[in-house]
């Protein structure tokens, strides 16, 4: 069991959180959608795993490279 951090690739704000903590995600599933440069930028699971925690809430500002969720495979 290893932990995988999902990071924001852009600075912006959290627009919508789609995934539920505890749920199983496949690679490519969208965890949340950020808003940046007037675009909806998805944060996707790079590998499959269980969503352990979200470290941001809707409306919150995020920085490029910030860890926004943690998965465990």
């Amino acid at each position: 069991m290893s932990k995988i951090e999902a990071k924001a690739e852009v600075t912006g704000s959290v627009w919508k959180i789609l995934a539920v903590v505890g749920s199983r995600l496949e690679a490519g599933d969208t965890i949340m959608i950020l808003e940046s440069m007037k675009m909806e930028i998805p944060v996707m699971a790079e590998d499959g795993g269980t969503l352990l925690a979200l470290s941001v809430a809707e409306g919150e500002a995020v920085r490029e490279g910030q860890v926004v969720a943690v998965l465990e495979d």
Partner: protein
Amino acid sequence: MMNSLPTHPSEALAAGADAASLPELSFRRAQAEQLGGAASVARHHEQGRLTIRERISGLVDEGSFQEVGKLTGQGHYDGDKLVGVTPAPYVMGLASIGNRPVSIGGEDFTVRGGTSWSGDRKKGGQGGFVEDLAHQYRLPLVNLIDGAGGSVTSINRRGHSVFPGVHGFERSVQLMGEVPVVCAVLGTAAGGPAGRAILSHWSVMVKNTSQVFAAGPPVVERSLGQKVTKEELGGPGIAVDMAGTIDNVATDEKHCFELIRRYLSYMPQNVWELPPVVQSGDRVDRCEDALARIVPESRRKPYDMKKLVRMVADQDSVFEIQPSFGKAVITCLARMNGKVVGVIANNPMIYGGAIDVRAARKQTHFVELCDCFHIPLIFFVDVPGFMVGKDAEAAATLREGMRSVYVGLQATVPIYTVVIRKCYGMAGMGTTDKNGLDLKIAWPSAEWGSLPIEGGVAAAFRKDIANAADPKSREREIEAELRALASPYRTAEAFGVEEIIDPRETRPYLCRFIDAAQGRLQTTLGQKPKFGVRP
């Protein structure tokens, strides 16, 4: 035949006719094959690293290495009798990669950590024989870097300190306009070897076993009081992903050699020749239906630009340069109907494709690379402009962005502009072929202007909006009016864009023009002088 030579002096003297007829030559060759000795080689292997001889044979076409300077080193004598030779810490020569000759060399870390060695003539490094061979014979140069450069101990040996780079770096610079230069960082590179890694058209380093920096942790601690590991200071996480100092990362040395062979397969031998054309086996008229659906209806939603590029280019021909740096643009070498092209595509997933300082730097280098080697460029455009915001301004996005535009507008290689969605402002202008045909084709989803409508309305119609009974609704009304006029078909009526195409037609359309441009490419070969001052 090198490999069949005996590896121990006593074996050398006992072995076969060659050894019998030329025992000293056989002995000296055998000494060279031993590198820094069994113990040193074992330590090197324990660190997960190959020796320079293993690297060269792992990279080049089998049996193609013709070494030059095998006998160089420090002879050890007992009176007049030769008892051994410590080889010079650099192995180099002529080899072939993909059946084409290259000049190749690298430091031997097992001999004094690959530090510099002084003979009558330099074997490698800046101004060494390996660079002269590349220059004189117009061959690609492959540098396998594994050395920390100069050492202050040389002051003791020489009795004086050496003025930096007395002769040599001018050759390294000259090569950048003549032949492809590829550098692989295969250990810890600092100083001169680190500098040389940057003086290349493409560079690669290996995960976990290589680092690159101007100076290593001891110097950093002494100068700044910072305690850092060499991985933190110059591992791929910094050097590739954050700084873009090195272009690509390999998972191990074997993978590194595959990447080098792949990169060179797109390159000509020099600027006086065109890159090799291959039989693509992919139909020119292949029209992917998925292209018609790839751009979402909502202008706020991004899409997978890399997938788009793969659908247009020859199958399996896309090789991405700097995939982890400046991700707002995607730069790839690829083929269209077997001919090499450079692809620059904006990535809507990263800041909506806005050009930030990193993306601008990446684009500048890639345009120069393709222009230098007569590789036509295709821009897949979806750019809202330069990146905005305080961080972007502080990072000099405007200057770096204009530099990329400037370099693009100086390029004389054919450039094809394919507008997928947004094409705005100076960043948009920088995607066009101002010194050539200026062929701009667009998808029906395209839109363009000096700036995106939603960003410009509030400023341009401030009074109108402020005086309205419902300012928000007036703003949306003006946006809708302008958007109706912004249809790409209206620009096509005015021949302001040369064609609007069905997205599925992108591949055949581009292949047709790239095939037709071959005559122009063949008749405009050679070096490209650059005038003026980059902003």
